[in-house]
Protein backbone atom coordinates (compact mmCIF):
# COMPACT_ATOMS: atom_id res chain seq x y z
CA UNK A 1 0.00 0.00 0.00
CA UNK A 2 2.74 2.38 1.05
CA UNK A 3 4.80 1.48 -1.96
CA UNK A 4 1.84 2.08 -4.20
CA UNK A 5 1.40 5.55 -2.76
CA UNK A 6 5.10 6.23 -3.19
CA UNK A 7 4.97 5.18 -6.82
CA UNK A 8 1.93 7.31 -7.42
CA UNK A 9 3.64 10.30 -5.85
CA UNK A 10 6.77 9.69 -7.89
CA UNK A 11 4.68 9.52 -11.06
CA UNK A 12 3.01 12.77 -10.20
CA UNK A 13 6.35 14.40 -9.45
CA UNK A 14 7.69 13.25 -12.79
CA UNK A 15 4.67 14.60 -14.61
CA UNK A 16 5.01 17.96 -12.91
CA UNK A 17 8.72 18.09 -13.76
CA UNK A 18 7.88 17.38 -17.40
CA UNK A 19 5.42 20.29 -17.32
CA UNK A 20 8.08 22.61 -15.90
CA UNK A 21 10.55 21.65 -18.61
CA UNK A 22 7.87 21.87 -21.28
CA UNK A 23 6.97 25.39 -20.17
CA UNK A 24 10.58 26.56 -20.35
CA UNK A 25 11.28 24.85 -23.68
CA UNK A 26 8.10 26.25 -25.25
CA UNK A 27 8.82 29.75 -24.03
CA UNK A 28 12.39 29.88 -25.27
CA UNK A 29 11.58 27.85 -28.39
CA UNK A 30 8.84 30.22 -29.53
CA UNK A 31 11.06 33.18 -28.72
CA UNK A 32 13.91 31.72 -30.79
CA UNK A 33 11.61 30.99 -33.74
CA UNK A 34 9.90 34.38 -33.65
CA UNK A 35 13.28 36.11 -34.03
CA UNK A 36 14.81 33.60 -36.49
CA UNK A 37 11.83 33.72 -38.85
CA UNK A 38 11.90 37.48 -38.67
CA UNK A 39 8.48 38.21 -37.14
CA UNK A 40 10.43 40.53 -34.90
CA UNK A 41 13.63 41.91 -36.40
CA UNK A 42 16.91 40.79 -34.86
CA UNK A 43 17.79 44.46 -34.55
CA UNK A 44 15.04 44.89 -31.93
CA UNK A 45 15.07 41.55 -30.16
CA UNK A 46 17.76 38.90 -30.18
CA UNK A 47 17.43 35.14 -29.85
CA UNK A 48 17.84 33.40 -26.50
CA UNK A 49 20.93 31.63 -27.80
CA UNK A 50 22.45 35.02 -28.52
CA UNK A 51 21.60 36.11 -24.96
CA UNK A 52 23.46 33.11 -23.55
CA UNK A 53 26.44 33.87 -25.79
CA UNK A 54 26.51 37.48 -24.66
CA UNK A 55 26.13 36.40 -21.02
CA UNK A 56 29.20 34.18 -21.28
CA UNK A 57 31.05 36.89 -23.20
CA UNK A 58 30.21 39.48 -20.55
CA UNK A 59 31.71 37.32 -17.82
CA UNK A 60 35.19 38.14 -19.12
CA UNK A 61 34.84 41.22 -21.31
CA UNK A 62 34.21 44.85 -20.44
CA UNK A 63 32.97 45.85 -23.91
CA UNK A 64 30.78 47.59 -24.89
CA UNK A 65 29.59 49.06 -21.59
CA UNK A 66 32.84 49.42 -19.68
CA UNK A 67 32.71 46.65 -17.06
CA UNK A 68 32.31 42.91 -16.74
CA UNK A 69 28.97 41.51 -15.67
CA UNK A 70 30.35 40.73 -12.22
CA UNK A 71 31.40 44.33 -11.63
CA UNK A 72 27.94 45.52 -12.65
CA UNK A 73 26.37 42.95 -10.38
CA UNK A 74 28.58 43.94 -7.45
CA UNK A 75 27.80 47.61 -7.88
CA UNK A 76 24.05 46.94 -8.06
CA UNK A 77 23.88 44.57 -5.15
CA UNK A 78 25.83 46.98 -2.98
CA UNK A 79 23.35 49.70 -3.82
CA UNK A 80 20.19 47.68 -3.39
CA UNK A 81 21.33 45.89 -0.24
CA UNK A 82 22.30 49.20 1.30
CA UNK A 83 18.89 50.72 0.60
CA UNK A 84 17.04 47.55 1.49
CA UNK A 85 18.78 46.90 4.82
CA UNK A 86 18.43 50.55 5.81
CA UNK A 87 14.70 50.31 5.03
CA UNK A 88 14.30 47.16 7.14
CA UNK A 89 16.29 48.55 10.05
CA UNK A 90 14.27 51.77 10.13
CA UNK A 91 10.92 50.60 8.76
CA UNK A 92 10.24 47.45 10.77
CA UNK A 93 10.80 48.93 14.26
CA UNK A 94 8.86 52.03 13.26
CA UNK A 95 5.91 49.94 12.05
CA UNK A 96 6.00 47.85 15.21
CA UNK A 97 5.89 50.78 17.64
CA UNK A 98 3.29 52.56 15.49
CA UNK A 99 1.14 49.46 15.74
CA UNK A 100 1.51 49.11 19.49
CA UNK A 101 1.68 52.64 20.94
CA UNK A 102 -1.30 54.88 20.23
CA UNK A 103 0.83 58.00 20.63
CA UNK A 104 3.27 56.80 17.97
CA UNK A 105 0.33 55.91 15.76
CA UNK A 106 -1.13 59.41 16.01
CA UNK A 107 2.25 61.03 15.52
CA UNK A 108 3.48 59.10 12.48
CA UNK A 109 0.48 57.67 10.66
CA UNK A 110 -0.89 60.85 8.98
CA UNK A 111 2.57 61.75 7.72
CA UNK A 112 3.19 58.24 6.55
CA UNK A 113 -0.16 57.99 4.77
CA UNK A 114 0.76 61.01 2.65
CA UNK A 115 4.24 59.72 1.81
CA UNK A 116 3.04 56.21 1.08
CA UNK A 117 1.23 56.76 -2.25
CA UNK A 118 4.12 58.75 -3.82
CA UNK A 119 5.82 56.42 -6.30
CA UNK A 120 9.57 56.07 -5.58
CA UNK A 121 10.42 57.30 -9.08
CA UNK A 122 8.57 60.56 -8.43
CA UNK A 123 11.19 61.26 -5.76
CA UNK A 124 14.03 61.34 -8.29
CA UNK A 125 13.88 65.03 -9.29
CA UNK A 126 13.81 66.30 -5.71
CA UNK A 127 16.50 63.83 -4.71
CA UNK A 128 18.76 65.12 -7.51
CA UNK A 129 18.33 68.65 -6.20
CA UNK A 130 18.95 67.80 -2.56
CA UNK A 131 21.29 64.81 -2.55
CA UNK A 132 22.83 65.08 -5.99
CA UNK A 133 23.45 62.09 -8.20
CA UNK A 134 25.89 60.07 -6.12
CA UNK A 135 25.66 56.90 -4.08
CA UNK A 136 23.51 58.52 -1.35
CA UNK A 137 20.90 59.67 -3.83
CA UNK A 138 20.53 56.21 -5.33
CA UNK A 139 20.39 54.54 -1.95
CA UNK A 140 17.70 56.99 -0.90
CA UNK A 141 15.48 56.14 -3.88
CA UNK A 142 15.80 52.43 -3.13
CA UNK A 143 15.26 53.06 0.56
CA UNK A 144 11.97 54.87 -0.10
CA UNK A 145 10.59 52.03 -2.21
CA UNK A 146 11.60 49.34 0.32
CA UNK A 147 10.62 51.33 3.40
CA UNK A 148 6.87 51.52 2.79
CA UNK A 149 6.04 47.78 2.75
CA UNK A 150 8.21 47.25 5.86
CA UNK A 151 6.25 49.80 7.84
CA UNK A 152 2.82 48.78 6.56
CA UNK A 153 3.25 45.08 7.28
CA UNK A 154 4.89 45.48 10.68
CA UNK A 155 2.11 47.84 11.70
CA UNK A 156 -0.59 45.41 10.56
CA UNK A 157 1.25 42.48 12.16
CA UNK A 158 1.01 44.14 15.57
CA UNK A 159 -2.61 45.17 15.04
CA UNK A 160 -3.58 41.59 14.17
CA UNK A 161 -2.20 40.08 17.40
CA UNK A 162 -4.75 37.69 18.90
CA UNK A 163 -6.47 39.51 21.78
CA UNK A 164 -6.81 36.25 23.72
CA UNK A 165 -3.03 35.86 23.83
CA UNK A 166 -2.70 39.41 25.11
CA UNK A 167 -5.29 38.62 27.82
CA UNK A 168 -3.43 35.45 28.72
CA UNK A 169 -0.16 37.32 29.09
CA UNK A 170 -1.89 39.95 31.18
CA UNK A 171 -3.44 37.43 33.57
CA UNK A 172 -0.03 35.82 33.86
CA UNK A 173 1.39 39.12 35.03
CA UNK A 174 3.08 40.58 31.95
CA UNK A 175 3.82 44.29 31.88
CA UNK A 176 2.89 46.38 28.84
CA UNK A 177 6.45 46.24 27.58
CA UNK A 178 6.59 42.46 28.12
CA UNK A 179 3.35 42.05 26.17
CA UNK A 180 4.89 44.05 23.32
CA UNK A 181 8.17 42.14 23.22
CA UNK A 182 7.05 38.62 24.06
CA UNK A 183 3.55 38.50 22.52
CA UNK A 184 2.97 41.14 19.86
CA UNK A 185 6.37 41.07 18.17
CA UNK A 186 6.63 37.27 17.77
CA UNK A 187 3.03 37.08 16.62
CA UNK A 188 3.70 39.74 13.98
CA UNK A 189 6.78 37.98 12.59
CA UNK A 190 5.04 36.27 9.67
CA UNK A 191 3.53 39.56 8.53
CA UNK A 192 6.86 41.31 9.00
CA UNK A 193 8.62 38.77 6.81
CA UNK A 194 6.00 39.16 4.09
CA UNK A 195 6.68 42.89 4.20
CA UNK A 196 10.42 42.36 4.04
CA UNK A 197 9.98 40.09 1.04
CA UNK A 198 7.90 42.74 -0.76
CA UNK A 199 10.58 45.28 0.18
CA UNK A 200 13.29 43.16 -1.33
CA UNK A 201 11.40 42.91 -4.61
CA UNK A 202 10.72 46.65 -4.53
CA UNK A 203 14.37 47.48 -3.92
CA UNK A 204 15.34 45.47 -7.00
CA UNK A 205 12.67 46.99 -9.18
CA UNK A 206 13.72 50.51 -8.25
CA UNK A 207 17.34 49.68 -8.98
CA UNK A 208 17.14 50.45 -12.69
CA UNK A 209 15.44 53.76 -11.98
CA UNK A 210 18.05 54.67 -9.37
CA UNK A 211 20.89 53.83 -11.71
CA UNK A 212 19.51 56.22 -14.31
CA UNK A 213 21.03 58.92 -12.10
CA UNK A 214 24.42 59.18 -13.78
CA UNK A 215 26.08 55.84 -13.20
CA UNK A 216 29.18 54.33 -14.67
CA UNK A 217 28.37 50.80 -13.67
CA UNK A 218 25.54 48.60 -12.40
CA UNK A 219 22.98 46.33 -14.00
CA UNK A 220 20.57 49.20 -14.58
CA UNK A 221 23.36 51.19 -16.20
CA UNK A 222 24.23 48.24 -18.40
CA UNK A 223 20.61 48.06 -19.57
CA UNK A 224 20.67 51.78 -20.38
CA UNK A 225 23.84 51.41 -22.44
CA UNK A 226 22.30 48.43 -24.21
CA UNK A 227 19.41 50.63 -25.22
CA UNK A 228 21.65 53.44 -26.44
CA UNK A 229 23.73 51.06 -28.52
CA UNK A 230 20.65 49.16 -29.72
CA UNK A 231 22.05 45.94 -28.30
CA UNK A 232 19.01 43.90 -27.15
CA UNK A 233 21.30 41.10 -26.01
CA UNK A 234 23.01 43.41 -23.49
CA UNK A 235 19.63 44.61 -22.23
CA UNK A 236 18.39 41.06 -21.80
CA UNK A 237 21.53 39.89 -20.00
CA UNK A 238 21.02 42.75 -17.53
CA UNK A 239 17.34 41.93 -17.08
CA UNK A 240 17.94 38.21 -16.59
CA UNK A 241 20.70 38.84 -14.07
CA UNK A 242 18.36 41.07 -12.05
CA UNK A 243 15.69 38.36 -12.21
CA UNK A 244 17.97 35.55 -11.08
CA UNK A 245 19.61 37.52 -8.27
CA UNK A 246 16.19 38.70 -7.04
CA UNK A 247 14.87 35.15 -6.98
CA UNK A 248 18.00 33.93 -5.12
CA UNK A 249 17.68 36.66 -2.52
CA UNK A 250 14.01 35.80 -2.00
CA UNK A 251 15.00 32.19 -1.47
CA UNK A 252 17.69 33.11 1.08
CA UNK A 253 15.14 35.26 2.89
CA UNK A 254 12.63 32.42 3.19
CA UNK A 255 15.37 30.14 4.58
CA UNK A 256 16.10 32.83 7.13
CA UNK A 257 12.40 33.11 8.00
CA UNK A 258 12.15 29.36 8.61
CA UNK A 259 15.06 29.70 11.01
CA UNK A 260 13.77 32.76 12.88
CA UNK A 261 10.01 32.12 12.86
CA UNK A 262 9.39 28.39 12.39
CA UNK A 263 5.89 28.35 13.90
CA UNK A 264 2.69 28.44 11.91
CA UNK A 265 0.28 31.06 13.05
Amino acid at each position, binding site marked *: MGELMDNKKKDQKRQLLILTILGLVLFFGIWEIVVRVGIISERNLCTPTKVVQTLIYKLYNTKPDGSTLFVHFLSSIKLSLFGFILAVVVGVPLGLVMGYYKAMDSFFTPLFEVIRPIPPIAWIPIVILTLGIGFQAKVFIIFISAFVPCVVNSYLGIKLTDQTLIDV*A*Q*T*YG*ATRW*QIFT*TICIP*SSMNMVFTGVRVSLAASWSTLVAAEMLASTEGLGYMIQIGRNLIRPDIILVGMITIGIVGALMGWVLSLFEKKV*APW*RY
Partner: protein
Amino acid sequence: MAVQKDKIIIRGLSKTFYQKNKVVEVLKNINITVKENEFLVLLGPGQCGKTVLLNIMADLDKPTEGEVEFTDGRPEMGNLGIVFQRYALFPWKTVMGNVEVNQKFKGTPKEKRQQAAQKYIELVGLQGFENALPQALSGGMQQRVGIARAYATESDIMLLDEPFGALDAQTRYSMEDEILRMWEQDKRTVIFVTNNVEEAIYLGDRIILLGGHPTGVKKEYVPEMPRPRNYTDVAFLKLRNEIVNNTDLVL
Protein backbone atom coordinates in the same frame (compact mmCIF):
# COMPACT_ATOMS: atom_id res chain seq x y z
CA MET B 1 -14.19 15.64 55.67
CA ALA B 2 -12.71 18.32 57.88
CA VAL B 3 -14.35 21.70 58.04
CA GLN B 4 -12.77 23.82 55.36
CA LYS B 5 -12.23 27.52 55.62
CA ASP B 6 -13.78 29.92 53.15
CA LYS B 7 -11.41 30.85 50.34
CA ILE B 8 -13.37 33.08 48.01
CA ILE B 9 -16.66 34.81 48.80
CA ILE B 10 -18.71 36.23 45.94
CA ARG B 11 -21.26 38.65 47.35
CA GLY B 12 -24.27 40.07 45.51
CA LEU B 13 -22.39 40.20 42.27
CA SER B 14 -24.11 41.68 39.21
CA LYS B 15 -22.80 42.59 35.80
CA THR B 16 -24.58 44.72 33.24
CA PHE B 17 -23.20 45.61 29.84
CA TYR B 18 -24.19 48.96 28.41
CA GLN B 19 -24.13 48.81 24.65
CA LYS B 20 -25.10 51.52 22.16
CA ASN B 21 -28.81 51.60 22.84
CA LYS B 22 -29.14 48.37 24.72
CA VAL B 23 -28.66 47.41 28.32
CA VAL B 24 -27.78 43.76 28.80
CA GLU B 25 -27.99 42.34 32.27
CA VAL B 26 -25.77 39.28 32.28
CA LEU B 27 -25.29 38.35 35.94
CA LYS B 28 -27.63 39.21 38.75
CA ASN B 29 -27.07 38.91 42.48
CA ILE B 30 -24.68 35.99 42.50
CA ASN B 31 -23.63 34.66 45.89
CA ILE B 32 -21.12 31.83 46.02
CA THR B 33 -18.71 30.78 48.72
CA VAL B 34 -15.74 28.72 47.62
CA LYS B 35 -14.05 26.57 50.28
CA GLU B 36 -10.33 26.08 50.51
CA ASN B 37 -9.01 23.20 48.39
CA GLU B 38 -12.42 22.18 47.14
CA PHE B 39 -13.18 21.23 43.56
CA LEU B 40 -16.08 23.52 42.73
CA VAL B 41 -17.91 23.22 39.44
CA LEU B 42 -19.83 26.12 37.93
CA LEU B 43 -22.35 24.53 35.59
CA GLY B 44 -24.42 26.53 33.16
CA PRO B 45 -25.63 26.49 29.57
CA GLY B 46 -23.63 28.21 26.85
CA GLN B 47 -23.72 32.01 26.68
CA CYS B 48 -24.97 32.33 30.27
CA GLY B 49 -22.10 34.49 31.44
CA LYS B 50 -19.85 31.91 33.07
CA THR B 51 -16.81 33.37 31.41
CA VAL B 52 -17.83 36.87 32.48
CA LEU B 53 -17.98 35.65 36.07
CA LEU B 54 -14.54 34.08 35.73
CA ASN B 55 -13.14 37.23 34.13
CA ILE B 56 -14.40 39.26 37.08
CA MET B 57 -12.73 36.85 39.49
CA ALA B 58 -9.52 37.15 37.48
CA ASP B 59 -9.80 40.95 37.54
CA LEU B 60 -10.02 41.15 33.76
CA ASP B 61 -13.42 42.77 34.16
CA LYS B 62 -15.15 44.81 36.89
CA PRO B 63 -18.53 43.93 38.44
CA THR B 64 -21.38 46.43 38.18
CA GLU B 65 -22.41 45.61 41.73
CA GLY B 66 -21.16 43.38 44.50
CA GLU B 67 -17.69 42.10 45.18
CA VAL B 68 -15.37 39.15 45.10
CA GLU B 69 -13.53 38.70 48.37
CA PHE B 70 -10.41 36.58 48.64
CA THR B 71 -10.06 35.72 52.32
CA ASP B 72 -6.27 35.62 52.01
CA GLY B 73 -6.18 38.90 50.11
CA ARG B 74 -6.75 39.43 46.41
CA PRO B 75 -3.95 37.83 44.42
CA GLU B 76 -1.98 40.24 42.29
CA MET B 77 -2.22 40.07 38.52
CA GLY B 78 -0.25 37.00 37.49
CA ASN B 79 -0.85 35.15 40.73
CA LEU B 80 -3.91 33.21 39.63
CA GLY B 81 -3.71 29.98 37.67
CA ILE B 82 -6.06 30.23 34.72
CA VAL B 83 -6.76 27.64 32.03
CA PHE B 84 -8.45 28.96 28.92
CA GLN B 85 -11.10 27.43 26.67
CA ARG B 86 -9.07 27.15 23.50
CA TYR B 87 -5.71 26.45 25.14
CA ALA B 88 -4.44 29.90 24.16
CA LEU B 89 -0.83 28.73 24.08
CA PHE B 90 1.87 30.94 22.63
CA PRO B 91 2.57 29.25 19.28
CA TRP B 92 6.14 30.56 19.06
CA LYS B 93 7.10 29.23 22.47
CA THR B 94 8.02 25.63 23.21
CA VAL B 95 6.21 23.61 25.87
CA MET B 96 8.87 24.72 28.36
CA GLY B 97 8.58 28.32 27.18
CA ASN B 98 4.82 28.29 27.68
CA VAL B 99 4.92 26.69 31.12
CA GLU B 100 7.63 28.99 32.49
CA VAL B 101 6.04 32.15 31.09
CA ASN B 102 4.49 33.40 34.33
CA GLN B 103 7.73 33.06 36.30
CA LYS B 104 9.56 34.69 33.41
CA PHE B 105 7.26 37.72 33.53
CA LYS B 106 7.93 37.91 37.26
CA GLY B 107 11.67 37.87 36.62
CA THR B 108 12.53 34.55 38.29
CA PRO B 109 16.05 33.45 37.27
CA LYS B 110 16.09 31.04 34.36
CA GLU B 111 17.42 27.97 36.14
CA LYS B 112 14.96 28.23 39.00
CA ARG B 113 11.89 28.82 36.85
CA GLN B 114 12.78 26.00 34.46
CA GLN B 115 13.21 23.63 37.37
CA ALA B 116 9.73 24.54 38.61
CA ALA B 117 8.28 24.32 35.10
CA GLN B 118 9.85 20.89 34.66
CA LYS B 119 8.02 19.66 37.76
CA TYR B 120 4.65 20.67 36.30
CA ILE B 121 5.47 19.37 32.84
CA GLU B 122 6.02 16.03 34.55
CA LEU B 123 2.83 16.43 36.57
CA VAL B 124 0.80 16.65 33.36
CA GLY B 125 2.82 13.80 31.82
CA LEU B 126 4.56 15.70 29.05
CA GLN B 127 8.18 14.88 29.87
CA GLY B 128 10.11 14.47 26.63
CA PHE B 129 8.08 17.19 24.91
CA GLU B 130 9.75 20.16 26.61
CA ASN B 131 11.19 21.50 23.37
CA ALA B 132 8.21 20.81 21.13
CA LEU B 133 6.18 23.68 19.69
CA PRO B 134 2.41 23.58 20.42
CA GLN B 135 1.59 22.97 16.75
CA ALA B 136 3.29 19.57 17.02
CA LEU B 137 0.96 18.47 19.85
CA SER B 138 -2.57 17.02 19.84
CA GLY B 139 -5.46 18.97 21.38
CA GLY B 140 -5.32 16.98 24.61
CA MET B 141 -1.58 17.52 24.93
CA GLN B 142 -1.96 21.22 24.21
CA GLN B 143 -4.45 21.57 27.02
CA ARG B 144 -2.08 19.68 29.33
CA VAL B 145 0.43 22.42 28.57
CA GLY B 146 -2.28 24.96 29.41
CA ILE B 147 -2.88 23.23 32.74
CA ALA B 148 0.84 22.97 33.52
CA ARG B 149 1.19 26.66 32.73
CA ALA B 150 -1.58 27.47 35.22
CA TYR B 151 -0.06 25.21 37.91
CA ALA B 152 3.33 26.85 37.39
CA THR B 153 1.95 30.14 38.74
CA GLU B 154 2.15 28.38 42.12
CA SER B 155 -1.20 29.99 42.84
CA ASP B 156 -3.40 28.17 45.35
CA ILE B 157 -6.44 29.10 43.25
CA MET B 158 -7.04 27.61 39.83
CA LEU B 159 -9.71 28.89 37.45
CA LEU B 160 -10.55 26.56 34.56
CA ASP B 161 -12.84 27.93 31.86
CA GLU B 162 -14.39 25.00 29.94
CA PRO B 163 -10.90 23.55 29.56
CA PHE B 164 -12.00 20.37 27.79
CA GLY B 165 -14.72 21.90 25.62
CA ALA B 166 -12.71 21.66 22.41
CA LEU B 167 -11.55 18.06 22.93
CA ASP B 168 -13.07 14.92 21.47
CA ALA B 169 -15.07 12.68 23.83
CA GLN B 170 -12.36 10.06 24.44
CA THR B 171 -9.65 12.59 25.20
CA ARG B 172 -12.10 14.46 27.36
CA TYR B 173 -12.73 11.44 29.62
CA SER B 174 -9.02 10.83 30.11
CA MET B 175 -8.35 14.52 30.77
CA GLU B 176 -11.09 14.51 33.46
CA ASP B 177 -9.26 11.70 35.22
CA GLU B 178 -5.99 13.55 34.78
CA ILE B 179 -7.25 16.78 36.31
CA LEU B 180 -8.57 14.86 39.34
CA ARG B 181 -5.28 13.03 39.72
CA MET B 182 -3.36 16.31 39.63
CA TRP B 183 -5.72 17.89 42.10
CA GLU B 184 -5.35 14.94 44.51
CA GLN B 185 -1.58 15.12 44.13
CA ASP B 186 -1.29 18.89 44.51
CA LYS B 187 -4.37 20.16 46.36
CA ARG B 188 -5.53 23.62 45.42
CA THR B 189 -8.83 25.47 45.28
CA VAL B 190 -10.24 24.67 41.86
CA ILE B 191 -13.09 26.49 40.15
CA PHE B 192 -14.04 24.51 37.08
CA VAL B 193 -16.49 25.99 34.60
CA THR B 194 -18.37 23.69 32.25
CA ASN B 195 -21.60 23.31 30.31
CA ASN B 196 -21.46 19.53 30.47
CA VAL B 197 -23.61 17.91 33.18
CA GLU B 198 -21.76 14.56 33.26
CA GLU B 199 -18.43 16.32 33.52
CA ALA B 200 -19.76 18.40 36.41
CA ILE B 201 -21.00 15.35 38.35
CA TYR B 202 -17.88 13.34 37.57
CA LEU B 203 -15.55 16.01 38.88
CA GLY B 204 -17.19 18.27 41.42
CA ASP B 205 -17.11 18.31 45.22
CA ARG B 206 -19.95 20.73 44.75
CA ILE B 207 -21.85 21.84 41.68
CA ILE B 208 -23.32 25.32 41.40
CA LEU B 209 -26.00 25.36 38.72
CA LEU B 210 -26.31 28.73 37.01
CA GLY B 211 -29.28 29.79 34.94
CA GLY B 212 -32.11 32.22 34.35
CA HIS B 213 -32.19 35.60 32.61
CA PRO B 214 -30.16 37.35 33.82
CA THR B 215 -28.03 34.53 35.15
CA GLY B 216 -28.16 33.74 38.82
CA VAL B 217 -27.43 30.76 41.06
CA LYS B 218 -30.26 28.26 40.55
CA LYS B 219 -29.27 25.47 42.81
CA GLU B 220 -26.38 23.75 44.52
CA TYR B 221 -25.71 20.01 44.32
CA VAL B 222 -23.30 17.86 46.27
CA PRO B 223 -22.67 14.53 44.57
CA GLU B 224 -22.37 12.18 47.57
CA MET B 225 -20.38 9.61 45.67
CA PRO B 226 -16.83 8.40 46.24
CA ARG B 227 -14.29 8.94 43.46
CA PRO B 228 -13.71 7.60 40.89
CA ARG B 229 -17.34 8.04 40.03
CA ASN B 230 -19.13 5.82 37.56
CA TYR B 231 -21.10 7.40 34.73
CA THR B 232 -23.62 4.55 34.77
CA ASP B 233 -24.08 4.40 38.52
CA VAL B 234 -27.73 4.76 39.62
CA ALA B 235 -26.98 7.68 41.91
CA PHE B 236 -25.00 9.34 39.10
CA LEU B 237 -27.88 9.00 36.63
CA LYS B 238 -30.41 10.18 39.16
CA LEU B 239 -28.45 13.32 39.89
CA ARG B 240 -27.90 13.83 36.19
CA ASN B 241 -31.64 13.72 35.50
CA GLU B 242 -32.33 16.07 38.34
CA ILE B 243 -29.83 18.62 37.07
CA VAL B 244 -30.90 18.30 33.44
CA ASN B 245 -34.51 18.92 34.38
CA ASN B 246 -33.45 22.05 36.19
CA THR B 247 -31.28 23.42 33.37
CA ASP B 248 -32.42 26.13 31.00
CA LEU B 249 -32.44 25.09 27.41
CA VAL B 250 -30.57 27.29 25.03
CA LEU B 251 -31.24 26.81 21.36
